[in-house]
């Protein structure tokens, strides 16, 4: 039964020429005898005409000139999701001599500069040993963190209860990895989880997760920012491995001990919240 509701429901489809011929005939037959539907259709068409007439001209030429400067200055370097580490990664990062991965978290973003500097020093965590041992002796690396930051090993339920959310790692490690353990750590900045994940060859990496709006800093170490599986990742290279940090929704994830960029891509793509 064609009535005003039927017509109103199909008004856009009619205007946009998306109705079947049968529906169009029924629509027009109704409008021939219904002043209000005919008027409404005309109004919608007038709105479209107004939108087209009001569209200001666009000049994107000058914008390109400004963009070129940003492209020149931009440190985001595109990478292929399938490629092995490119030479440029190591060319940039090879100068990393000493490692002091600073997990800095500004609890109070309104802090003045002096306070921030002080917090840097207070919260600096020497991850040199973590990075060096994450691949071959992950349990020893975690044990030191546990001792320093009142850590404890928990299962998924207890971890979720402790942190207030379930770390993404409990939804499953990427293919080729097995989660071995998860510890919670009471860092100066925040509570976080640290999970050891083992490769098939017996080597490991460690994945950290915390929820706060707090960036992970890599101190003054040379780092690059690049897109990995759609996420902006900050990467440093040390001890022949990669340490990577990226944000996913309200979660900050940091991985220490990745073999190469392909592995980073695999993890970033797999860690769904």
């Amino acid at each position, binding site marked *: 039964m064609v009535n005003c509701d039927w017509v109103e429901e199909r008004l856009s489809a009619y*205007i946009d020429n998306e109705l079947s011929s049968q529906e169009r005939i029924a629509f027009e037959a109704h409008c021939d005898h219904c002043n209000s539907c005919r008027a409404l259709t005309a*109004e919608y068409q007038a709105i479209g005409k107004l939108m087209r007439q009001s569209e200001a001209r*666009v000049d994107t030429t000058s914008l390109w000139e400004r963009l070129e400067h940003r492209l020149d200055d931009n440190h*985001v370097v595109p990478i*292929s999701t399938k490629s092995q580490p490119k030479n440029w990664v190591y060319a940039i990062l090879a100068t990393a001599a000493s490692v002091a991965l600073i997990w800095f978290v500004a609890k109070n973003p309104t802090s003045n500069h002096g306070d921030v500097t002080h917090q840097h020093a207070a919260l600096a965590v020497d991850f040199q040993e973590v990075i060096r041992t994450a691949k071959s002796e992950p349990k020893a690396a975690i044990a030191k963190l546990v001792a320093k930051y009142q850590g404890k090993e928990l299962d998924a339920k207890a971890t979720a209860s402790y942190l207030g959310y379930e770390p993404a790692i409990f939804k499953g490690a990427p293919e080729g990895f097995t989660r071995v353990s998860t510890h919670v750590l009471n860092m100066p900045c925040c509570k976080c989880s640290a999970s050891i994940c083992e490769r098939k060859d017996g080597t490991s990496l460690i994945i950290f997760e915390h929820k706060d709006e707090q960036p992970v800093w890599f101190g003054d170490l040379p780092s690059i920012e690049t897109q990995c599986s759609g996420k902006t990742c900050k990467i440093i290279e040390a001890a022949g491995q990669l340490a990577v940090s990226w944000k996913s929704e309200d979660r900050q994830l940091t991985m220490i001990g990745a073999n190469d960029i392909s592995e980073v891509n695999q993890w970033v793509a797999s860690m769904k919240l």
Partner: protein
Amino acid sequence: MQQSESSNPQKPMQLTASVPIDELKKWVRNATSGDRECQKRIYELLAPRIYRVIRKIVGVSDADDVMQDFVIHLFAKLGQFRFESSLETWAHRMAVNQSLQYLRKNSREEQRALKVAQATEMTKNPSSQNQADDAEVLQLAMEQISGEQRALLHMKEVEGLGYEAIASVLGIPEGTVGSRLNKARKELRTSLIQLGWEA
């Protein structure tokens, strides 16, 4: 009763179809590697249309910034484009998502931005005072609807895209485009009438 006498004929995203596919693949490959000339070609191909939709969603005063961020993002992700859809659809989708995300992050700024937009985007060459007034009223009315609704209406009414292309850009089922457009048009009409507009 005449149908759609003022509407553009609907069309898919097809600007990039004007470039031979092998040539386009070469541009994409080289642009991914940082070739500035190929980046510029891709920019020139996509920019006018994408700039318009970004401007419609975020407003004139923020359009340049969002467009620049979009282009940087586009070139960073270009290596992931697999030619499974048209480059234009893929880029449009990215631009719309980035614009909507910008609005969400800057919701308190939106009102200010649109007020500035209202003051600055009035047609530069009005053929009559009435036309300028109508454009101003339309600008104000557009403030009252959501960013996604602005994107929808722009793609349909200004770009003249078909439902399939719109669904592809917005990542929504094609079957819901008509009802979403209906809702957007209804809300825009209500706002226009409240502002004193007459067809």
